[in-house]
């Protein structure tokens, strides 16, 4: 942003201004396109009397609120109008600095139109969908937090996927053996930390290219867990039946309509995540610890000169990142009450990485980005049940497509820590 304001007074078009202009044109076209899709694909096939019922209550209900019943076609045309209006202004005048806000608005309108279209002539639980979104976002945000801890200290961590997978595996096995969820989680956290230590040693001590090191850890974990799942777990199912973690509604808060079930009627992992997001956010930006971490990630030489032990900070943070990812991994098995399956993380670690980038290496941003991915994931899971005429295989690509769009469209704005990925060599 600072580059844009600095050049605003200049006569000649700078590169950033050109980018801005191009972005305006692209966005405007996309908005108009969205409006067209809503009209042609969603609204026109629906006849005028059809209604969409969006259920807001999720049993058990303390305070019942009425369902949202909308005339399908009318709502769709209104949403199309919103998108078209935004597109027209974007193309002619532009929204200036508020473009991101408008983008969010149009995206919301489009998603809402999609939901109304899906629910046309039937009822769909909106609160349930959002609750699922939060659940699907959990491992993604854990992964993103892991990435933030590492990359703020200047170490790229693409081993998140492997750390999640290892946490899922060890969590399931340890919890099954001990019959204790807590010990299972502890095991998952520790194995994540162990992999973090391996990444740290490879990246810091042996200066292996950090992406290669992370990649190696990923396939090592895929191989090991696949090997052990086939050799040990298949014959011994009792090792792979972790006790189910029950939902722990928070009293009072969980009774709030809509927000209650979404945020406060979840299991302990979700609450742990909320706390972790806030702790890491405050820690990074409002404590001496965070200042040191960021100094190491931005300018290790300067940090070293100021008396900060760069290696120590990097080792510590990468191991911490591993611990967090291991915890997130346990969510796949212990947190969902299912046994381990081979490669069950299905790329969530990488989506977490994208959430980290989208969120600008900021825990709060990453949590928001994770929710978007979780939502895309939840839509895919839900709509295949509701029977809509989009092939479920293609809808299944939705989280991945969103990831690409996000990384391609917005990474230019978010700035990675300056020394991210660069090994440090003390002189």
């Amino acid at each position, binding site marked *: 942003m600072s580059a844009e304001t600095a050049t605003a007074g200049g006569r000649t078009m700078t590169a950033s201004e050109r980018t801005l202009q191009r972005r305006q044109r692209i966005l405007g076209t996309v908005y108009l396109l969205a409006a067209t899709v809503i009209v042609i694909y969603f609204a026109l096939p629906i006849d005028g009397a059809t209604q969409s019922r969006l259920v807001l209550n999720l049993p058990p209900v303390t305070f019942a609120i009425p369902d949202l019943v909308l005339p399908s076609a009318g709502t769709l045309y209104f949403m199309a109008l919103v998108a078209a209006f935004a597109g027209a202004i974007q193309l002619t005048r532009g929204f200036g600095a508020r473009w991101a806000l408008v983008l969010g608005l149009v995206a919301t309108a489009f998603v809402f139109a999609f939901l109304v279209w899906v629910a046309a002539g039937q009822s769909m639980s909106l609160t349930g969908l959002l609750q699922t979104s939060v659940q699907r976002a959990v491992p993604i945000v854990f992964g993103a937090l892991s990435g933030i801890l590492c990359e703020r200290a200047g170490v*790229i961590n*693409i081993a998140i996927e492997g750390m999640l997978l290892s946490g899922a595996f060890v969590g399931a096995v340890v919890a099954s053996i001990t019959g204790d969820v807590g010990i299972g989680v502890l095991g998952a956290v520790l194995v994540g930390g162990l992999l973090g230590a391996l990444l740290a040693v*490879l990246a810091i001590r*042996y*200066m*292996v*290219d*950090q*992406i*290669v*090191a992370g*990649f*190696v*850890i990923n*396939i*090592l974990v*895929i*191989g*090991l867990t*696949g*090997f*052990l799942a*086939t*050799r*040990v777990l298949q*014959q*011994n199912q009792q090792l792979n039946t972790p006790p189910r973690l029950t939902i722990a509604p928070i009293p009072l808060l969980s009774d709030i309509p809509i927000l209650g079930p979404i945020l406060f009627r979840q299991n302990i992992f979700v609450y742990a995540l909320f706390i972790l997001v806030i702790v890491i956010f405050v820690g990074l930006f409002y404590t001496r610890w965070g200042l040191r971490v960021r100094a190491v990630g931005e300018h290790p030489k300067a940090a070293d000169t100021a008396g900060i032990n760069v290696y120590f900070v990097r080792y510590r943070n990468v191991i911490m990142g591993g611990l967090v990812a291991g915890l997130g991994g346990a969510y796949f098995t212990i947190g969902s009450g299912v046994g381990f399956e081979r490669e069950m993380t*299905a*790329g969530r670690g*990488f989506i977490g*990485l*994208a959430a980290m*980038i989208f969120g600008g290496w900021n825990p709060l941003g990453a949590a928001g980005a994770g929710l978007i991915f979780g939502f895309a994931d939840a839509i895919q899971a839900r709509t295949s049940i509701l029977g809509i005429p989009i*092939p479920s*295989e*293609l809808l*299944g*690509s939705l989280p*991945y*497509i969103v*990831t*690409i769009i996000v*990384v*391609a*469209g917005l*990474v*230019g704005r978010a700035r*990675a820590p300056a020394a*991210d*990925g*660069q090994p440090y060599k003390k002189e």
Partner: protein
Amino acid sequence: MTDEKRSIPPTEELARTTEGAAAAAHHAYGDLESVEQPEPPARGPGRLPRLLGPLLLPGLALVSAFLVGAIVIIASDERVINMFGTDPLGALGMGISTTFAAYGALLRGAIGDPVQIGQAIVDLDLNALHRSLNPISETILSSTPLVLTGLAVALAFRSGLFNIGAEGQLQVGALVAVLVGFGITGVPWFIHLPLALIGGAIGGALWGFIPGLLKARTGAHEVITTIMLNFIAFRLVDYTLRTPLYQRPGRADQISKIVEPSATLPQFIDHPLLRAHWGIVVALIAAVVVSWLLFRSTRGFEFRAVGLNASAARYAGMSIARTIVLSMMAAGALAGLAGAAVVLGTTRTMNVGLASGAGFDGIAIALLGRARPAGVVAAAFLIGGLRAGATPMQAATGIPIHLVVVLQALVIMFIAAPALVRAIYRIRTERQTGAEAFAKGWGA
């Protein structure tokens, strides 16, 4: 391929001491290493002869990987664990014998049993000969796509890109190749087969073009975009194979129509046990072409220049954006060709999970082969042998095929961290080959 060495920019050869005690690193140049350093008294097994030169580190990496693999086999053996309390030595012995049995089966599954082959030749028993040659044929078969995906990753490495997307590029290439293969009828093979191969290359190139363009235009890091495109490619295959255009009539599962005989890559020997086909020749030709492209052509020079130092390349007037896009497209084309080779030669149809993992193996192979075409071919045969031997190993000893994935990860780790291997084996000085760095942050 001997010219290759000359055209690689000379990398600075650093001689390092690996012992932590020696704080001051001797900056002696490897070639001038004639001055003998005083041998430290009784320090481990001493230094290994450096006669093996460039093969030493990969060799040691392999040995280390197999040693760690042995630990994995032994530690995951239920019987060993149960026996360990009462009879630790016996348990260990059993574990070691299991390991030898597993590795033995892996080796036999990869290259076959020389005694059997010899016996079959002596006896003039054609059936026995076919049977005994089956492992080698299977190794060639599984190496065929690996040579190509290895090249796909290596080529991108050379221009500073980490192409994790060979997996998806292979799938899309296979989709196009199989469509050309069964969709066109009544043309002679010398038209049909090249068309199908080119179709595969184009499909892969398209799937490589997307991350290339995104990287060049927006700075989106290719690691993330290619991984996402892999997932999308899998879903695309899932979907496409259900469409009437692809799905074989009368089948409910996801399997495509059968490739016309005029588009198939024929087997060398027409025998059900010897499935190796001309795809390997296509792959080897591709290796020669890539070698020429990288080290003999202007375009390849640009690829390598951008990979080594993008700013310098830009200063020299090269277009970074164009290089990135072209290099990703070329890489995608190679991976797409791998998909084509599989559907036109091995399976003659397309199904879900076809050649899965070949793209990821390509990364291991490119690292193992130091991103050089000749090295890639050698590494592809190594990994292909492991892959081919894995299934018989599982059948014979019950050791899951995933062991091979573990071995592969360990090999890459040891290859990528030469200092680690040197520290383990106490090799004091070693030629430092240029380790390319790919981690350049998240772009833009």
